[in-house]
């Protein structure tokens, strides 16, 4: 079955079996291996991608269901090859990752959160990553990373397009 996908701002076409999940197609057809395959039945969050800006589990969506949406994977976050997004960099700075298995999902979940607010509470962050399991860090450094990224984005002086459209929560 032919499917038209829009992945990281690029239109792509794939001919896939309906039973192939978006996760399978991202990894196997488009070699976007940053989206990790963990449990493959909706429990771990390793496969998180953004669909129209909202985090979803790509293992619980068939690729044939994904046409017409804007899909963002971890590969789509960095501003340029070899660079890191502010959130990605914050994860490095605060040791928000160890083995890295959960990291793409965590970062995309955090990215979606910080699109809506730049002053998240600890509870907001915990809720945003509540569907993502990490077996290494104990979560503390991940929460720290997201807080750190929010702090940096809040004081960043280059206006980002998204901030002109959505209300920004002022720093306390």
């Amino acid at each position, binding site marked *: 079955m032919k499917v038209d996908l829009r992945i990281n701002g690029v239109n792509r076409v794939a001919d896939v079996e*309906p*039973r192939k999940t978006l996760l399978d197609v991202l990894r196997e057809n488009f070699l976007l291996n940053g989206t990790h395959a963990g449990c*493959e*039945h*909706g429990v771990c969050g390793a496969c998180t991608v953004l669909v129209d800006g*909202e985090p979803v589990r790509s293992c*619980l969506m*068939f690729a044939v269901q994904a046409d017409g949406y804007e899909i963002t994977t971890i590969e789509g976050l960095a501003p340029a090859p070899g660079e890191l997004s502010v959130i990605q960099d914050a994860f490095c700075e605060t040791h928000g990752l160890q083995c890295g298995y959960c990291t793409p999902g965590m970062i995309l979940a955090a990215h*979606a959160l910080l699109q809506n607010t730049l002053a998240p509470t600890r509870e907001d962050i915990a809720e945003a990553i509540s569907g993502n399991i990490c077996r290494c860090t104990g979560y503390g450094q991940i929460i720290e990373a997201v807080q750190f990224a929010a702090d940096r984005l809040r004081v960043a002086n280059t206006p980002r397009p998204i901030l002109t459209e959505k209300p920004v929560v002022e720093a306390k």
Partner: protein
Amino acid sequence: MKPAPFDYVRPDTLAEACALLAGDEDARVIAGGQTLVPMLAMRLARPAKLIDILRLPELAGIREENGAVVVGAATRQAQAERDPVIRASVPMLARVLPWVGHPPTRNRGTVGGSIANADPSAEIPLVAVTLGAEILLATPDGPASMPSDDFFVGPMLTAIGQGECVRAIRFPVWPHKRIGTGFFEISARKSDFAFVAAAAQVALDEEGRCLDVALGVGGVGDRPLRLDVSSLSGTRLDAASIREAVNAASGELDAMSDLHASAAYRRRVAVTLGIRALEAARDNAAANPGKGAR
């Protein structure tokens, strides 16, 4: 694991979807896929055909009409959670939605899918039964409806027939001004399926006397159960009356036993959470001045 092969169709109209369903015993509806896809992946389900109803315009939308809020079956749980009409008019639904899975599952999972799936511990069916919602169906012969009490038959079992699908859920809106809700659940991790859940809604008059009350428990029996605590109407919902009413109503609660919890544990926790939910609903209503709200 990977799902077994199937055909995928995305009809443009609800009538077409019903016709496809009616004509094929091995066809199955897929909405948000948050329950069905794991079942396919583990090969607990092997339909030959999946009929995708998520984008059907007839199943979209949330509207208020004649003392009720009608929520289209394909409404995403995340969308319902943010919806101002639901917050204002069906506060119990707004209250439980943050407990349904996690943000990513709520971004895809639908209100109608949760109803159709009829998990005994699912929060949305609990609200439907507790408030006495009506389930609106699409059938090959046209629209139909049935009360929640008749719709939920057992664990993952509903009265839905071949060729039918859930069109919308009609949640009654209480006419009173001061309404409050309470909700508690016990689960292994927040937002996992509840071992026991209790949801309450109360309406108070200006003096703080109870005008109306509803209490339901989930995860206890083979489907969500409404408990009869109508004896609390007219009282001030003092702790002793609440305790007495909940104990009396849970007398013959038919609780199930599984590897997560014994029947005795479930019964005991249901009573405790039922009491807490009513107390929280009372305090929530008391803190509500009733102005602006309905």
